[in-house]
């Protein structure tokens, strides 16, 4: 079967736009959490989040009218442009070959729905015609496809907080199945009031900081962002002398089939096992786990129990970190941004830390790479993501060796 490599990275997050700024802040352990400015939070229990503050869409798409896009699309378009530039791929290249797109999201352009709701509550006859066109979830990959002249497969996954990994995985499949040669894959979610209110009402949001695996962890941080990767068929990448970050060698999906919001250890275990099996490796081969690690008591407990079960005696010897401690939980973008972090970690042999870690939790006695980045050679990285609905996805990335 054809091999699939990662040749471009584009990220828009609360800790940086573009891979350089992102990686620098990620390895410095910087937090991107700040007071929420998207809407008034005075009536919510918490007030912080991981918003992307300085967001210069014009810089990446000069002369293109912003008001014809949802914020989700603007985040996605920006990450796409960064990734294509990074991969040194122009629109004319994309027209010459079969290029497809697979994106993931939790709520798509929910911000547009929130704007419409507010306008119509004030005046039910308000003209919202232009906004309606931005509501469909797939308007984001459509905008990306149109601006970048894509002509191949098109897919939008709404598998909540695991959607990025779903999209990367299927892009990998499409290249292996010889349907396309290049796939623009990733995830996007704008800062959503529905999500912020919902998680607040779940008492799942940390008031001050996100502390994955810490005994006193108080929850997640709602965030926004976009992560886009360029996947390329290996021969195509080699022929054009592309810079290769890593290879994708498999992924696994599973469904808890138990509860909409409580994670299940069994489901997560199966997901990781399926990913390792498809990659053709054993638990002994994994050098780094990028955790789902939301910082909620239930998630981290279940994920650590699952890691123990899959990796057996070795579980304390594998670095497991959660970059959500720094940039918050970017929902459908999270696992795509984490796959970018894995790619850079493999490339630079550095593991980003879990920040805000103070007190060990006996239920989470993994090595969470506390507070400081660590030099560590990675041959195989496992990128975990779990979602509402018990939709689980784990991706295996490998150091590229010809």
């Amino acid at each position, binding site marked *: *079967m054809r091999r699939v490599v990662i040749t471009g990275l584009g990220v828009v997050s609360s800790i940086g736009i573009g891979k350089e700024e992102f990686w620098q802040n990620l390895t410095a352990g910087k937090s991107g959490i700040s007071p929420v400015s998207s809407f008034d939070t005075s*009536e*919510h*229990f918490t007030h912080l989040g991981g918003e992307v503050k300085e967001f210069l869409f014009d810089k990446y798409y000069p002369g293109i009218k912003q008001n*014809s896009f949802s914020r989700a699309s603007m985040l996605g378009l920006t990450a796409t442009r960064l990734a294509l530039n990074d991969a040194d791929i122009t629109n004319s290249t994309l027209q010459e070959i079969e290029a497809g*797109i697979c994106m993931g*999201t939790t*709520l798509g352009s*929910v911000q547009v*729905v929130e704007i419409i*709701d*507010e306008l119509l509550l004030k005046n039910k006859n308000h003209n*919202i*015609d232009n906004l*309606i*066109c931005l*509501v*469909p*979830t*797939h*308007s984001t990959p*459509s905008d990306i*496809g*149109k601006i970048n002249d*894509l*002509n*191949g*497969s*098109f*897919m*939008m*996954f*709404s*598998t*909540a907080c695991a959607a990025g990994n*779903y999209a990367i995985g299927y892009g990998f499949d499409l290249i*292996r199945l010889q349907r396309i040669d290049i796939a623009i894959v990733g995830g996007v979610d704008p800062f959503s*009031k*529905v*999500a912020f*209110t*919902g*998680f*607040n*009402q*779940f008492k799942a949001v940390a008031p001050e900081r996100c502390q994955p695996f810490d005994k006193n962890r108080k929850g997640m941080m709602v965030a926004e962002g976009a992560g886009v990767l360029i996947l390329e068929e290996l021969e195509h990448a080699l022929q054009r002398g592309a810079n290769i970050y890593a290879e994708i060698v498999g992924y696994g*999906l*599973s*469904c*808890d*089939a138990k509860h*909409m919001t409580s994670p299940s250890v069994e*489901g997560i275990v*199966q997901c990781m096992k399926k990913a390792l099996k*498809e990659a053709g490796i054993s638990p002994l081969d994994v050098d780094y786990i990028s955790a789902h690690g939301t910082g909620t008591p239930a998630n981290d407990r279940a994920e650590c129990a699952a890691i123990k079960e899959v990796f057996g005696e070795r579980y304390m010897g594998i670095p497991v970190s959660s970059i959500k401690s720094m940039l918050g939980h970017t929902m459908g973008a999270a696992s795509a941004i984490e796959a970018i972090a894995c790619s850079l970690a493999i490339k630079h042999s550095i593991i980003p830390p879990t920040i805000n870690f103070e007190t060990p939790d006996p239920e989470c006695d993994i090595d969470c790479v506390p507070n400081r980045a660590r030099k560590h050679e990675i041959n195989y990285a496992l990128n975990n993501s779990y*979602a*509402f*609905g*018990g*939709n689980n996805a784990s991706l295996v990335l490998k150091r590229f060796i010809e």
Partner: protein
Amino acid sequence: MSEINNILITGIGVISPIGEGKDEYWGALRTGRSGFREITLFDTSDFNVKIGGEITDFDPLKYIHKRHLRVLDRSTRLLIAAARLSLEDAGLTITDENTYSIGVSAGATFGSLHSISQFDREGLIEGPKYVNPSFFPNTVINSPASQVSIMFKIKGFNTTISTGFCASLDALIYAADFIRLGRADVVLVGGVEELCEETFMGFYRLGLLSGSKGSPPGCKPYDKNRDGLILSEAASVLVLESEEHARKRDAQPYARILSYSNAFCPQKPGMFTSGDGLKKAIIQAIERASIDYEDIGFISSCANGGIELDKMEAETIAEIFGNKIPASSIKSMIGETYSASGAMALSAATGAIHLGFIPATVNTEEPEYPINIIKEGIENVEIHNVLVVSSDPYGNNSAVIIGNI
């Protein structure tokens, strides 16, 4: 890796405005019965159009135990009901042994827009601290598909695909790829869309609904006098199964997946696309099926009475097939079920192959385009292959060919 043509359709479940269960659905399609009626699900006094494809006699308690019902929204109830019907029809039992080789792949684009908007408005009106958290899980678009997994303990994988009009054909493509790649033996493939005030208002305000300019509403695909679509709701689930697995358990297959394709059409700007993407998807699907154009019994079209979509689709069909191959749109009877429309068309096409009929494009009186539109249903006809197409104004196009066993 298994071949595409080793994937079978072994079960059908339908909940629709023209019937519940495959037999009622196929029966209604054969007699040309329409499912349009006055909407009762929400107040239509703000709209010129009062008609929709509402499912009026749906009793969720037939499918879902009362204790589970309270928090499940309409989309979720419809999809669970269709899934239950499809599992019963396929005679498939999910056990601890086979559950990890069974998946769910469903098309849903708005999720429940009603659930999202209701949750949001409760926060705006009552204040965020007074929002009922038990309805938060309904706001994620993957809620209906995930609840199907929870209800039937399906653990292999669960995927929700949001590509608008193409969503459930894309769900089938994805599912078939997963079977080919050895990730699953069986996948429940489906789509769902509920009729609610929020989506209705969206289509209405964009002027896409038939009757919005004052004339009596009627869905007339390809007709010179068409003036829009009729919005509907439905859920359909098909059981897709590898031939090996179906044979082992002596399943009775209805049809076989021959090929599929999905292609984006990068035309810009605006909402409507040229036919380039659809043409590419159709031609690729025919090539991959290794059949001749004449081998297609009929084209299950996605024309919904909309001005632009019908024109683009008809011109594309004319360019590829001339007027040789019959084309029919079941949307003339069931209306536009958006993310569910592909699954509705697949279920209809499966019946057409199984029972030997071509459904009519009812209401179409004066076709505007030189293609072979089936205005009266045809019975007692042997159908070897059906081409099912979907095209979305955001640029995506999907084509699936299913064939007889």
